[in-house]
């Protein structure tokens, strides 16, 4: 069984490596990871679970005794999330991590001090926890977005007092078909404020890339709705009129080929496209965030936790502050906007992934201004410089939390030749470990090994031969590495096809996640047996195939998978179950015939 085990060991190794952030080979100059970064205090984030509160209190009391530390809540928002701060250095950090306290915490990490050269004089800047959480001051020390243009595809932008000193370039109102793209809702002006609110003007609040140009593109009505046709035209308008970055704090509906083409067009013209992941608290970003070449942004709150409304999972590339007003409005994102009814300028706290996306768009403008041109490189820098979030199995944070200072620092460091080569290659090929269902692969492998063991009890047969192992591999697993591989300028479907196991081929061919009952059945193993039974070597391949497909279908059975034309119901379960039995019967017949044939 050595070879079989070796294969599953390798899959396991890949899975572990992929789960580990180190798999994403590359350079990282994340400030928080550098040895030089300073800290005087340590953050303790206790686990949240029913019945744990009392234990946390006990641990806090122990902490005071054992280490002579006095834990304090980080902010008024921290109590519900059990986030505490204690004074301490590297030694205390190590001691805490080694103590039994670690079992009760999600993380124990240094509370790094970010030194900055510049704090703006906007009187309400202190209320913008969000800008501090992305270390915006460290970015400002390098660049403030000068020369870059950010198209805000939204409800329009009204030039409120705190946008008077911000640069504007001509935009368009696609709802009312006119050049002036004023806001009649309040959403677009708020989003624009996060990107480029007039800053250090002694008034109001700050924005991230406040020296950048704003291009107002109104596609959403006063009620906040817009159609795909207008949004698509706005994307093309931005690309044709010199935008460097597009922000789309909007979403919904289904996939649109028209919109995907516009996104590809803007991308080919060097535009970085950022979109909100959506606020349904569901396990996939909405469109347009989910399109390729769009940076999908999820939201976290003032404590750095996933915001309760934020979508997660597929399509989330990075996380940024979107706030949560659940425990009070100051947990939201504060910018100047207009009141929907009166039209008058007002400072308002909003929450949403709509608020998170413009943080990323603002930092993208800073990177463009520093001189990074290729949108892939901007995305790479944003993602590699992001603060990594441990144990994020639901992909609530993508590459991590946006870090403006680390991104600007990474962008200003000139890469050595190998770094540039790597960056070029990375822009041609990239690998997304998250598209591979590691758990399912391991489970299918284990079940296939168990079935194989059962057959060896029936008769000794050459299960360690190549023919049998290749059969199992194609039936249960497929060339799974290809599932995560993307190649620039090539469509994804041929890679998905190559990366699929036999029962998944129907899904890959028709790009439909539901199991296709023609492929996910005993039909192909049966054809294999009929064709190959008389061949002394290849019949082991067909037997392996039958065992592999049986293992694949067994896992589908455990997960109540949706079967095309049938549904995700008892009939589908019965269909899969019967086919597992039939596949095993095909394998048993092959084995019986081969045994009577003298193997």
């Amino acid at each position, binding site marked *: 069984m050595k070879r079989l085990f070796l294969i599953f060991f390798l899959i396991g190794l890949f899975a572990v490596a992929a789960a580990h952030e180190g798999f994403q080979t590359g350079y990282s100059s994340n400030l928080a990871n550098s040895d030089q970064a300073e800290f005087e205090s340590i953050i303790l984030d206790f686990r949240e679970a029913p019945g744990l509160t009392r234990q946390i209190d006990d641990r806090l009391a122990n902490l005071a005794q054992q280490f002579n530390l006095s834990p304090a809540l980080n902010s008024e928002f921290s109590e519900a999330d059990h986030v505490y701060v204690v004074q301490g250095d590297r030694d205390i950090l190590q001691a805490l991590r080694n103590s039994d306290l670690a079992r009760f915490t999600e993380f124990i990490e240094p509370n790094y001090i970010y030194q900055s050269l510049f704090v703006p004089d906007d009187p309400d800047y202190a209320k913008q926890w969000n800008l501090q959480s992305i270390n915006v001051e460290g970015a400002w020390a390098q660049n403030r977005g000068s020369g870059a243009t950010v198209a805000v595809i939204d409800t329009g932008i009204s030039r409120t007092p705190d946008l008077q000193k911000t640069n504007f370039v001509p935009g368009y109102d696609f709802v009312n078909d006119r050049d002036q793209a004023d806001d009649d809702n309040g959403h677009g002006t*708020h989003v624009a404020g996060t990107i480029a609110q007039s800053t250090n003007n002694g008034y109001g609040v700050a924005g991230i890339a406040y020296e950048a140009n704003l291009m107002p593109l109104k596609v959403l009505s006063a009620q906040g709705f817009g159609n795909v046709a207008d949004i698509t035209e706005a994307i093309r308008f931005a690309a044709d009129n010199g935008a460097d970055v597009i922000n789309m704090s909007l*979403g919904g*509906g289904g996939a649109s080929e028209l919109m995907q083409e516009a996104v590809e067009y803007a991308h080919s013209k060097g535009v970085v496209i950022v979109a909100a992941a959506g606020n*349904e608290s569901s396990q996939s970003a909405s469109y347009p965030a989910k399109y390729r070449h769009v940076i999908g942004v999820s939201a976290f709150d003032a404590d750095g936790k996933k915001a309760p409304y934020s979508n997660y999972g597929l399509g989330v590339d990075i996380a940024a502050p979107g706030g949560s*007003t659940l425990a009070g409005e100051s947990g939201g994102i504060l910018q100047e906007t207009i009141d929907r009814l009166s039209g008058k300028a007002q400072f308002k706290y909003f*929450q*949403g992934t*709509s608020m998170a996306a413009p943080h990323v768009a603002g930092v993208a403008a800073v990177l463009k201004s520093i001189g990074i041109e290729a949108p892939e490189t901007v995305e790479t820098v944003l993602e590699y410089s992001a603060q990594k979030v441990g144990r994020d199995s639901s992909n609530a944070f993508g590459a991590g939390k946006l870090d403006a200072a680390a991104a600007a620092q990474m962008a200003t460091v000139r890469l050595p030749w190998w770094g540039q080569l790597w960056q070029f290659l990375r822009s041609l090929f990239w690998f997304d470990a998250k598209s591979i269902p590691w758990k399912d692969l391991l489970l299918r492998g284990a079940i296939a090994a168990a079935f194989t063991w059962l057959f060896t009890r029936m008769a000794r047969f050459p299960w360690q031969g190549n023919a049998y192992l290749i059969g199992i591999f194609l039936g249960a697993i497929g060339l799974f590495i290809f599932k995560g591989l993307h190649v620039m300028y090539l469509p994804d479907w041929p890679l998905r096809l190559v990366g699929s196991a036999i029962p998944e081929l129907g899904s890959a061919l028709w790009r439909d996640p539901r199991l296709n009952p023609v492929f996910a059945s005993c039909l192909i193993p049966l054809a294999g047996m009929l064709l190959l039974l008389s061949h002394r070597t290849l019949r082991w391949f067909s037997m392996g195939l039958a065992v592999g497909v049986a293992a694949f279908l067994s896992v589908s059975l455990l997960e109540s998978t949706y079967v095309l034309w049938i549904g995700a119901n008892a009939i589908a379960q019965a269909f899969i179950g019967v086919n597992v039995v039939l596949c095993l019967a095909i394998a048993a017949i092959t084995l019986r015939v081969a045994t009577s044939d003298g193997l």
Partner: protein
Amino acid sequence: MDTTTVKGTIQWMEMGSGTWAVVTDEGQTYELHGDTASLEKKGLKVQIEGAVRKDVMSMSMIGPILEVKSYEILSES
């Protein structure tokens, strides 16, 4: 376009600049679109006949966008 019937409670959702929604008893949230002025009252129990618009996007992104065709107010709660 297919119409669908949704029964639930009207709510104002604080997402982005805020929007009106109907939340069904099963917990599914639909964002209200179209001529909704007379439905815009928190806590209203309603039955709405409408179409889910897949060609429309919104700034609130809270769920499917339901264009109201007709409605019946069940109670003012």
